[in-house]
C-alpha cells in the first residue's frame, strides 16, 4: 500500500472524509485504503456510529434529577415573591 495513504494518515482525516471536505485525489486515496484495510474501515464504522450511540445514550432520563427540581422550585419561589 505504499502508494496509498498510511493508516495514520487515513484516520487523521476521517472526519474530513465523512464531511466531504477533502479534494478528490485525497478522497480517492482514502476510499481505496478503506476498501483494503479492515482496521481503518472498522474505525470509520465506529465514527459513523458515534452520533447515534451518543444520542441514544445521552437522551433525557424519565425523571428530572434533584438539582433540576431544585432549580424549578427556586424559580417558582422567585415568581411568588415577585407577584406579591
Amino acid at each position, binding site marked *: *500500500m505504499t502508494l496509498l495513504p*498510511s*493508516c*495514520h*494518515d*487515513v*484516520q*487523521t482525516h*476521517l*472526519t*474530513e472524509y465523512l*464531511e466531504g*471536505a477533502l479534494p478528490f485525489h485525497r478522497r480517492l486515496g482514502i476510499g481505496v485504503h478503506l476498501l483494503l*484495510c*479492515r*482496521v*481503518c474501515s*472498522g*474505525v470509520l*464504522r*465506529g*465514527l459513523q*456510529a*458515534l*452520533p447515534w*450511540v*451518543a*444520542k*441514544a*445514550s*445521552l*437522551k*433525557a*432520563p*424519565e*425523571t*428530572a*434529577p434533584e*438539582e*433540576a*427540581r*431544585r*432549580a*424549578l422550585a*427556586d*424559580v*417558582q*419561589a*422567585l*415568581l*411568588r415573591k*415577585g*407577584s406579591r
Partner: protein
Amino acid sequence: MTEASLTETDLIQRAAQGDSDAFGDLVRPHLALFHNGIQRILGNSADAQDALQDALLSIHKDLPRFEGRSRFSSWGYKICMNSALMFRRSRVRIQDMERPEPLALGPFDAAGHHTETDRRPEWQVEAQAHDLVERGELRDCLMRALDELPDSQRIVFVLKDVEDWEMEDVARHLQLAPGAVRQRLHRARALLQTRLRDHVLGGRP
C-alpha cells in the same frame, strides 16, 4: 395547585399571568429534557443548575410571546440551549487548552500503518454497542468521556453530533473556520471512540 384537567394552553396563560403553580405544572413534564440538554453542553457542574434556572426564568418571561407554532417543549428546549451556550461563553475556562489528543487510533509502525492487526480485536459497533445502548450501559461511560474533553471539543461534538447542528452553524456560533471545527470534532470523536472501545471490549465500568 392547578387542576389536573387544565390543558397546556391553559397552563401557559395562567403561568404568563404570574401563577407559579401553573408554571411548575407546565414545565415539570419537560424538566428532565431541559436539564439534560443543558448538562450535555456544560457537564456535571453547578453551572448546569444555574443555567437551567436562568432558562426557566427566560421561559417565564417570554411566555406571552409563545405563539404555539411549535410544541412548548421544543420552544422551551431552544431557550435552554441558548442559556447553556450563554453560560459557556461567560464562564472562565482556565483548563480549556488544546490538548494533544490523538487524531488516530494506533498503535502504528514507523510507516504509519497498523501493527498487530491480526491480534487487534475489532470493535463491532453495530453489535456490541447496540446491546449496551439498549441496556443503558453507555451513558456513564460517555458522560465521563465527554468530561475528559476540552470544552472547545466537547461543544463541537455536542452541537454537531448530538444536537444535529449543521457544520456551518457550529462554525458561525463558535466564530471558527469550518476546518477548525472539523479538526476539533475529529479529536473529540477519536477520544470518545477510544473510551467506548475500551469500555465495550474491556467491560470497564
